[in-house]
């Protein structure tokens, strides 16, 4: 399975900037036409009709997007994958402790993430320094994150939850090796 996170980020940016531009365009057009004078009794019923349609459109759109995006959640993957490679991750102020320094591409990796002190954010960045997955590292809890790396290489682990003075320098790396012949794909 290809990890589609780059697509998600691009999609998120595209939707957001298109939405912001659309809203800006509507406000600019209304502002530009505001100098004309038309009785409110004429404008208001038209606007209310449009508002009803907008409400239905947003409702249907929201339901559709929710249905599609809630289909595959990251929370229950630990039970769903077979024979994952286990990596125990312990966060400390300000370093990461990993039980393995290398994993295999295309094989699901189950990161069991905890912390011995404060909240941290366990975030995996690919070779293009693109965030591909994250989970919180919290004292007293183990958060399980499943990732299948689709490309061999060096991946960076950064902290994404503010944890004190050296938060920005709390980095580690993990090597993703080419898959062993015959290994099971995720």
């Amino acid at each position: 399975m290809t990890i589609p996170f780059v697509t998600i980020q691009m999609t998120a940016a595209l939707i957001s900037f298109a939405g912001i531009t659309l809203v800006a365009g509507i406000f600019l057009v209304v502002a530009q036409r505001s100098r004309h004078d038309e009785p409110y009794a004429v404008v208001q019923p038209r606007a209310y009709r449009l508002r009803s349609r907008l409400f239905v459109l947003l409702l249907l759109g929201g339901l559709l997007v929710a249905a599609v995006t809630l289909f595959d959640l990251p929370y229950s993957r630990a039970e769903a994958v077979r024979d994952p490679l286990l990596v125990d991750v312990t966060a400390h102020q300000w370093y990461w402790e990993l039980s393995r320094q290398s994993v295999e591409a295309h094989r699901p990796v189950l990161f069991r993430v905890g912390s011995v002190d404060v909240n941290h954010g366990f975030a995996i960045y690919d070779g293009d320094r693109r965030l591909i997955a994250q989970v919180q590292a919290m004292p007293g809890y183990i958060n399980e994150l499943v990732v299948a790396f689709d490309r061999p290489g060096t991946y960076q682990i950064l902290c994404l939850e503010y944890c004190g003075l050296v938060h920005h320098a709390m980095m580690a790396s993990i090597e993703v090796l080419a898959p062993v012949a015959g290994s099971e794909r995720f």
Partner: protein
Amino acid sequence: MSTSAEAHPRRPESLVWLYLAVVGIVVVAMMGVGLVMRMGQAGLLQLSPQWFYRFLTMHGVGMVGISGIGGAAILYHFLSAHVDLSRKVFLANLIFFLVGAVLLLGTSLFAGYAGAWTFLYPLPQHSMGQWTPIAAALHLAGLALVGVGFLLFHLDTGRAILGRYGSLANALGWPQLFRGSAADPPPATVVAATMVLIVNVLGLVSGASIIVMSIVSLLAPAFTIDPLLAKNMIYVFGHIFINATIYMAVTAVYELLPIHTGRPWKVNRVFLAAWNASALFVVIVYPHHLLMDFAQPTWLHVVGQIISYASGFPILVVTAFGALTLVHRSGIRWTAASAFLFLSMFGWSAGVVPAVVDGTIAANQVLHNTQWVPGHFHFYLVLGLLSMFLGFALHFSSQRGDAVADRVGFWIYAIGGLGFTCLFLAAGASSVPRRWAAHLADWQGFAAAGSVFGAGVLVATILLVARIAVRARRPA
């Protein structure tokens, strides 16, 4: 049904101007701090991590607190036209804020406290030698004092609303909404104040509880708190409080935009339904801040996403759309005040888009705690909330008309704000983390360009605040 807005020739009383003066000073100061942080990330100036994280803490807590003060000033002004509010309680809120602010800023400036405004347990007691438990406890005590002031303010609005309308249900328009009553509904400002009263009391109680628990834990470390419970309680408080600031300040749009357009803002059943829905949504939407806490029950994550979507509806469909309807072909003669009120509606409604995207679990996994997050909330706060403050203050301070400087200030602010926030969003989409003192070289371009736009916002704000201050002192 009735209209909520009649002409408001009544200028704000001196105490409201005092509030606004505090807002002007603190906003400019905290914008300056924010700009220094952004320039530090860009490598345009040398800023040590110690001072970056202190500034981060000051900027966050200062801006959130002052947003509440600005919102309270606007709400008090308009609500006092409908109900009998206590001036003493209103003054007490400001005093509590100022005393709290001394502790909040003082502990960061002089005692090194840098636990961020979210004070996520147990970070305040794990400073690794950067601050003492006493400094952290004093900081949290400052936060509690600010919260006590707001709790008093909202309880007083509740007392006054109950005295005038008999019940919170009446003040939320339930008779008109659910029983088909033909009686005039409550004014928009009363509906907003009642909603804020309910949600903010809930949020403040949650916040006060976790603050007190954190202080006890700081002073008696044997007393521990479940970190996940603490995080839930903090985000209930934080999410509700910052959203309530906008719900208070938007009364400026309801009350003033009709004056500029010559059209009434109608309180009808759709309006009432939207505000009642918002009261529910704003309380239960907070789990979208914890989507990356996989230990939370999955159903809470799902609720977080769905309510994130739903909570955008009332804003987009009722308030922003209502403002557009009011302005469309109205023959309005634009002033800086009306322009800022209109801009605030753009900021609020457009800011919904990246917020809803971030509230989607699949997207949150690659956007959470990146600069996408400050991108979307600065959209709300710079272009939405602060524009409401500026629109309100300009309306009452520039009744002799605009000067060129006001219009120039507006455009610098609007363009600067848009550029500043969009660069945060672009950086977030490029996986740049938030709350990092030092940025890698290939991330610094976002921060450098953001600094330029941020400087524009700061300059425009100083210009406008100065002009408001000078004119507000003259008699109308």
